[in-house]
Structures are given as C-alpha cells and as structure tokens.
C-alpha cells in the first residue's frame, strides 16, 4: 500500500509533504521512540510510529529511509522539525490513537 492509502484508510492528519504520499510505498512498520534504537532497526519503507516529533526524528527518518513518520496520540510536531521535514521531503502524519492500536490496524492492511 502507499502512504496515501494509509492516510485515506485511517483518516490521518497530514502534517508535512502529503504531496509525496501517493508515490511512497509502505513496506512494513516500526514502533519506537528511542532514536538510536529506531535508526538501527527500522527498515527502509517502514511506517514509523512514534511520539517523537522533533528535529532529530526527521534526521533519523531520512537516514533510515522510512516511508513516513506517523505521530501517535496527537503528539507534538515542533516548528524546527517541520522545517527540516520540508527540506528533506519527509512525510509526517498524525493520529489520536496509540501506537498499539494503530499498529494492529496497519498490519492487517499490509
């Protein structure tokens, strides 16, 4: 499925770079908030579920080549992070649901 399918299926809020969502394939998923942990374990094309909406999360998303960041439980997305995401073309989404509930639903669709 594409990131756009993900947005439509789960009515996700689009915080950055939604215009890239139709072309971006979601191959899997990863949940985690410790950036070093995520960076070394998330796979290319994963939908990354996290509460970390800071500028360093964007750095990790770029280096790990994830398909998108999905901020869970309406977690904050600060201005520095938004700027960095725009510069790097990182798709950032948000949901009010927690990582567990979202992961279960996303896994069913993959």
């Amino acid at each position, binding site marked *: 499925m594409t990131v756009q399918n993900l947005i439509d299926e789960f009515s996700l809020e689009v915080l950055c770079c939604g215009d890239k969502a139709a072309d971006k394939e979601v191959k899997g998923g990863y949940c985690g*908030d*410790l*950036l*070093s*942990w995520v*960076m*070394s374990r998330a796979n*290319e094309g994963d939908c990354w579920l996290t509460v*970390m909406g*800071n*500028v*360093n*999360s964007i*750095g*990790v998303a*770029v*280096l*790990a*080549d994830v398909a998108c960041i999905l901020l869970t439980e309406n977690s904050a997305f600060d201005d*520095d992070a938004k700027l*960095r995401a725009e510069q*790097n073309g990182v798709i950032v989404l948000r949901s009010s649901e927690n990582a567990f509930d979202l992961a279960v639903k996303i896994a069913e669709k993959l």
Partner: protein
Amino acid sequence: MSEVIKQHYIVDGTDFTRAGEASGKIKKTLKDIGFPPQAVRNTAIAVYEAEINLVIHAGGGEIDVEITPEYVKVVLTDHGPGIENVELAMQEGYSTAPDRIRALGFGAGMGLPNIKKYSDEMDIQTELGVGTVMTLKINA
C-alpha cells in the same frame, strides 16, 4: 569513480537542531557516486550516532571524510572531556547523557555499540580532559 573524495565538516556543539547535517550530506554524496546501498546506510547510521555524540558530550568537533571506491573512512575529532571508561561506554544500555537529552529520544546507551555494529573498523583514542579521536572505516 576513481578519485578520492575528501570532505570536512564542523559540528556545532551548541545547536542540537543541526546535528545530523554532516551525516546527511555524507549519505547523499555516497548515494550520488553509487556506493552500495547497504554500505551507505551503515555509514549514515554510524556517522549520525558519532555526530550526536559530539554534540551531547564534547561541545562539538570536526569530521574528516575520505571516500574511495573501496571504502569510506571517517575521522571525528573533539576537544571534549574524553571517555572515562571506553569498555563500559561500548556496552549497550550504558549512558551518561543528561535527562534533557533523553527527553529528545537519545541517551539510550546505543550510540557507541551502534557505531561499532555498522562500521567494519572502529578505533577510539581518548584522553581525559583533552579529547577524543574516533576513526571509522566502512567497506564498499
């Protein structure tokens, strides 16, 4: 690609929001010249961790990169406090990062272990009160 590419970066120790810029640029260079994807990813992760360490622990530093068709060599130099116990610092989960850094998602004690994991060669020369020089080599 037959030439050796050399790059030099200065890592600002006061601006945490810019940490990751050097590793991002190195990654882009490697991608552009057609370095193998797995080696590009390994280099990016190792250098990002090292760059974050420069900001968290050393007040910044400098990064010298040498890229050849066979390998990429990265030398990170700082004039920070040095590493008191390298063996301990190499253990997963051991961290001396302050709480404000942990709140940003770092300080999990994965930095040096990750660098070792993703480098083919890693060397640390450190002296308390003087600084640290870390040399990494990742083969193509």
